[in-house]
């Protein structure tokens, strides 16, 4: 029968229970790893560099004191954060992880400035949305007064002669009537778009629908 231990004496050490193998800290410190070793749960033997870094920056005794002041359930996070800080300090002996903090703060400041600029640009659009009613109404009224159109685009003009009303029924070819109907885009917007304050689009939904019936089909724009 093949005797693993005889053939490979080192296997005795490996085949022992895992709790007997020294942790990375005790291996580094060349001491016997006691069962109650405070480092053993957090410095496994397969990660020797982790303890080496922590020891170099903080020292074993300081880490022991730190861990002893914490609850057991906090120790793993504390060890991992200490290992991270030690690693950063060894990579950058001047700034350590403060260098990373500085970079992140700079990045955050940049983002906040960009947000601020974007929000001010957005507010311009939102303000234009409110006053855009007046702009489109004024443009349409301008056409209305100057050219005596039979069409009432925006009903607030009041300068249209009554007998022109039937003109737009008779003399607009069918394709133009289709175009007017297509301006009624307000009904096609869903609530999410309305919620984003795009009320300027609702202007063009106020076009009178061409109908055979006579009567006042003027509509007014809701200035809201």
């Amino acid at each position, binding site marked *: 029968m093949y005797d693993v231990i005889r053939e490979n004496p080192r296997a005795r050490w490996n085949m022992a229970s895992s709790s007997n193998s020294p942790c990375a800290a005790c291996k580094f410190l060349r001491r016997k790893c006691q069962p109650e070793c405070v480092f053993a749960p957090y410095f496994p033997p397969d990660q020797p560099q982790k303890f080496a870094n922590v020891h170099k920056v903080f020292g074993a005794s*300081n880490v022991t004191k730190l861990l002893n002041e914490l609850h057991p359930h906090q120790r793993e996070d504390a060890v991992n954060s200490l290992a991270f800080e030690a690693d950063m300090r060894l990579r950058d002996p001047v700034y350590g992880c403060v260098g990373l903090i500085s970079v992140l703060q700079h990045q955050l400041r940049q983002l906040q400035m*960009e947000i601020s600029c*974007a929000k001010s640009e957005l507010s311009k659009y939102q303000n234009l949305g409110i006053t855009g009613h007046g702009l489109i109404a004024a443009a349409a009224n301008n056409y209305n007064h100057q050219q005596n159109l039979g069409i009432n685009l925006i009903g607030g003009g009041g300068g249209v002669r009554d007998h022109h009303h039937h003109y737009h029924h008779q003399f607009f070819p069918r394709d133009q009537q289709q175009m007017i109907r297509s301006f009624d885009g307000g009904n096609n917007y869903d609530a999410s778009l309305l919620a*984003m304050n795009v009320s300027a689009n609702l202007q*063009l939904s106020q076009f009178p629908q061409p109908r055979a019936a006579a009567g006042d089909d003027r509509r007014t724009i809701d200035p809201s």
Partner: protein
Amino acid sequence: MSHSTRCAACKSLRKRCPEDCVLAPYFPPTDPQRYACVHKIFGASNTTNMLQQLPMHLRAEAADCISFESRSRVEDPVYGSVGIITQLQEQIITAQSELVKTKGEIAFHNAQQQLQQQQMQQLQMIHAIAQEVEDQPLWLSSSQQDPFPNVNQQLLEDYNYSNTFCGFEF
């Protein structure tokens, strides 16, 4: 030779502060708390070793960073400076989301503006067509039609005269 007043480190260690004390320039006795945190987290010998490995012109900054890290660790024994890093990362993620959302809203409004411009152009076209209709002669739009669109007006008068003459009674 030694410093007239001991630095915070040598005071804490209760020893004489030599002239070439590595820590003296960065841990004055006026701020004992600064060194106390460093001593608790890093220890005197580790701090001295870290500063000694650096050129003189970088030691002040390094001492400030070591002091910051040790103070963070004293205030938050579990996460220390890593807690600050984590918080900043979360804030950055939130800010990035907000920026993307705001830029999306701007893009939406841009699209709306372009749509409005297109619609205004179409309005203008309709106005132009309507203007052409308005400019047509009035008789075309009324029920009266010109029965003789191409007749010479003089011929029409001659005809009327001849009819009148023939109807004269002797």
